């Protein structure tokens, strides 16, 4: 019942965000209709950071407990994190094409996300290179923790140190939010509903992996018993 209620609230919330973004939102000077990208691009970038953090958290839990389930959760978090990083890159580069007349400019923000994609891409290369389950999980957990150390540096520090064509982040270096009332309402609603939706995706994936592992273990035990 609660689950159905949440789904209904999410559906209505996301429909309202879409309607607000395209029909109600005021436009920022210099951005015009591309102000609307803000309501989708920024939350996706935020969720990327959340997933990379969750990957680091589950990697830490794995190293503490050696429970292989935590390794699987860390892998899911990194998969989703990289998916959302790609989405942030795509929405950002389409925006760049219109505003800067080029899809890619090696701007500090673009360079940062590119390096992050390489770092997290290497996580999956590392996993696929090791066959032994325990060793793979241990090395991947250590790598994931080290990779997360670079996230705040590339997402929050580098773009603020170097000159960037990228518009001021929503919360600029002076700590002020550069949005009017309408934009704030749509932006924070979008951030809230998208975060809930993506956490829901994560929970469904977690359940899927858990059941797959359970079934695999059951079949292996059954096979052994039959032998």
């Amino acid at each position, binding site marked *: 019942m609660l689950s159905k209620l949440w789904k209904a609230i999410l559906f209505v919330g996301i429909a309202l965000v879409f309607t607000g973004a395209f029909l109600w939102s005021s436009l920022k000077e210099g951005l015009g209709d591309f102000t609307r990208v803000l309501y989708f691009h920024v939350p996706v970038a935020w969720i990327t950071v959340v997933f990379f953090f969750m990957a680091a958290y589950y990697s830490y839990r794995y190293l503490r407990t050696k429970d292989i389930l935590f390794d699987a959760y860390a892998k899911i978090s990194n998969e989703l994190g990289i998916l959302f990083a790609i989405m942030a890159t795509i929405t950002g580069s389409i925006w760049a094409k219109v505003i800067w007349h080029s899809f890619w400019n090696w701007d500090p923000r673009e360079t940062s996300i590119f390096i992050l994609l390489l770092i997290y891409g290497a996580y999956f290369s590392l996993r696929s290179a090791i066959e032994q389950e325990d060793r793979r999980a241990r090395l991947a957990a250590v790598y994931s923790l080290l990779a997360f150390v670079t996230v705040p540096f590339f997402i929050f520090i580098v773009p603020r140190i170097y000159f960037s064509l990228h518009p001021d982040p929503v919360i600029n270096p002076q700590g002020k939010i550069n949005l009017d009332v309408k934009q704030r309402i749509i932006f924070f609603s979008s951030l809230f509903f998208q975060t809930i939706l993506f956490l829901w*995706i994560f929970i469904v994936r977690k359940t899927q992996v858990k059941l797959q592992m359970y079934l695999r273990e059951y079949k292996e035990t059954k096979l052994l018993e039959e032998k």
Partner: protein
Amino acid sequence: MNAVYVVLIINLVIWTGLFFYLYKTDRSVRQLKQEIEDLDLMKDSKSLTDQN
């Protein structure tokens, strides 16, 4: 093409993809639960999923 339509199309494509992914994953979970139920193991697996 008007800029607003470009933004709308990009977002619709992304969101459709996300909902499709969620739908596929959710369907896979239901199938797995069914498979476990068929194996008469639901009692144990329920405690597993409840830990979420």
